[in-house]
């Protein structure tokens, strides 16, 4: 413990690592190095790498959960579990495409909403003269560190236990039956505008379709139930992204803001032409993290709606889970998981690739901005 006090001041000092010694004195490091990493690596291999390979195998079989799938006479499916998701008209493709449609509308709303809410919260609580700053920051951040199960339980009470609808009733609105309402909001809107009647949809849209869903189903928009889940997720995750934005805001040097102030920029211009452009890399990070996260929604669906009503909150992750654990179509469930995996990995790699370029560009532009600020 004595070492801790002496070492503390050194901790923040970061200097590039350089080895002073040659390999000679570090001979034992070969074995110690492996000794140190092997327990953690063994766990990662056993519970990440091996399971992925096992599921890959299962995705090529028709294993129904009886016995072990790792025997030679297990019924083989070849690529059928994958092709069924895309090319064969049937319940499997219909469910899968429904989940893709749902997650498309979900992402379309969640990502912009949580990003703009996070940015607004960060700008609001970043004020240097703001009173009770810590209180507001904690209030907005707290939901993202609590258990998804606990938060979803609270929102079940808010939406279905009558709390929200009693508030709405006070201002004369009769609220919908939130998590039990399967009506698509686009369909409702078309009905309200008198363009199409949801009770009697246009036959051109109902009689034709694409990938096992009618056009009327494709354009449905998120259901009211899905909107409730969207609200829950945006409310929960905005705090995490607010913290990321706050860190970036603190990086914007006061000099640059002062300079723009002296140039006579009003607060709106300062935000529009100075702060937002400088936050661009952060916004990119937040948008892509949101996109990657959206495709993984599981807990909230499992707890609040189990994919219902009318499958309008079915998400690919939840569908993959139920295909295996509930329907015992382990091959189909695994195949769905790998398709989902591929989609998410593409987003992740794209993000890492672009971020690498941006980090360099950011350093360049920051130097340029600093120079300009000095000159100006």
């Amino acid at each position, binding site marked *: 413990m004595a070492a801790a006090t002496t*070492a503390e001041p050194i901790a923040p000092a970061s200097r590039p690592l350089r*080895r*002073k010694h040659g390999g000679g004195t570090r001979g034992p*490091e*070969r074995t*110690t*190095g492996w000794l*140190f*990493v092997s*327990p*953690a690596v063994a766990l990662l291999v*056993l*519970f*990440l*790498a091996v*399971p992925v390979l*096992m*599921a890959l195998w299962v995705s090529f079989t028709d294993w129904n959960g009886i016995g*072990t*799938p790792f025997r030679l006479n297990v019924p083989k499916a070849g690529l059928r579990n994958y092709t069924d998701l895309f090319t064969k008209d049937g319940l499997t493709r219909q469910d899968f495409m429904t989940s893709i449609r749902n997650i498309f509308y979900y992402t379309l709303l969640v990502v912009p909403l949580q990003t703009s809410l996070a940015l*607004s919260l960060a700008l*609001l609580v970043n*004020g240097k*003269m703001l009173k009770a700053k810590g209180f507001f920051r*904690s*209030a*907005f951040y*707290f*939901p993202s*560190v609590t*258990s998804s*199960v*606990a938060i979803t339980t*609270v929102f*079940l*009470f808010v939406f279905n*236990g009558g*709390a929200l609808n*009693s*508030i709405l009733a006070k201002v004369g609105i009769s609220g919908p039956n939130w998590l039990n309402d399967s009506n698509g909001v686009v369909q409702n809107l078309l009905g309200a505008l008198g363009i199409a009647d949801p009770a009697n949809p246009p036959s051109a849209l109902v009689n034709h379709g694409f990938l096992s869903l009618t056009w009327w189903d494709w354009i449905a928009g998120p259901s009211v139930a899905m909107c409730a889940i969207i609200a829950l997720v945006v409310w929960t995750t905005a705090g995490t992204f607010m*913290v990321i934005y706050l*860190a970036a805001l603190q990086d914007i040097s006061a000099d640059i803001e002062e300079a723009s*102030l002296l140039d006579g920029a009003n*607060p*709106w211009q300062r*935000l529009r032409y100075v702060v937002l452009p400088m936050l661009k890399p952060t916004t990119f*990070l937040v948008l892509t993290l949101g996109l990657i996260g959206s*495709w993984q929604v599981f*807990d909230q669906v*499992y707890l609040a709606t189990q994919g219902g009503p009318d499958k309008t909150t079915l998400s690919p*992750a939840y569908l*993959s*889970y139920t295909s*295996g*654990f509930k329907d015992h179509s*382990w091959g189909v469930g*695994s195949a769905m998981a790998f398709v*989902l995996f591929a989609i*998410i990995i593409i987003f992740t*790699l794209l993000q890492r690739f672009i971020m690498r370029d941006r980090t360099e560009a950011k350093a360049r532009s920051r130097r340029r901005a600093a120079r300009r600020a000095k000159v100006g």
Partner: protein
Amino acid sequence: MVATVHGSRPRKPAKRHRTAHGGRSFTATFLAYAVLVFLALVYLVPFLLQIVTSFKTQTDAANHPLGLIPHPVSTRDSIGRLANGSPGFPRALANSVLVTVLVTAGRVFLDSMAGYALARLRFPGRRIVFGAILAVLAVPGVVLLIPKFLVLNRLGIYDSYPALVLPLLADAAGIFIMKQFFESVSENIEEAARIDGAGTFRLFWSVVLPMARPALITLTILSFQGSWNEFAQVLVSVQSPQYYTLPLWLGNLVTGSLGAGTQYPLKLSGALLATIPVALVFALLQRYFIRGANEGAVKG
């Protein structure tokens, strides 16, 4: 509305404009606080309702879901039922504590060891191991649900305590955080100790670990929060109620066929008890949470 906060921020160069903008600045400040208070209410009211409803009776909660004063104040349908009547709750609580303690201790120990080796020790395959860890970080948890079940089943430990703990010990993010930390600190003290003739493990245990306290606290908090809250990964690891953790117990209650529209005092008080430990740690050590969030984002 966002810009107004900046406008309200008195800055030295703006002083001479004060007469011109004084009125607007006051309105702006007022508006900014109004928006903030409204948003704070949106964030706090659900928790407030959760607490209040935990002291309501079933009928009171159903008839006055928004009532801020329980009438009568009673824990008969909520906490009281958790303590004695409700099957499985005490056991789930004990399981949660056990899993959280084991997983947190295990992760902190294994991750810091691996992170230290990757940052400091030269051994063949180091780059490959680190590359593999970066790759693993990109694997989303939800696609591992069926795979986890398959391996636990194969190992014959599905539906057991090892199934609850062992998979959660595998933690690439923690290794990454520790490696980054060790690379950011000076090597001088270790060098000095090494010259004194300390072996690598003794050096690690008595010199390196005490020095790594800030990173260890961050990692402890991330692990504690992660394992206490974990739902999906434990959902596929066990099925018998005797192995339920708190999130599983609550999830089972919430999705159960006992009637979705009822029992809100019981459900909300269960959710409250699942929230309190995290809330306490959050209140005491918030800055470490924030550090963790930013480190998590960088790795993303």
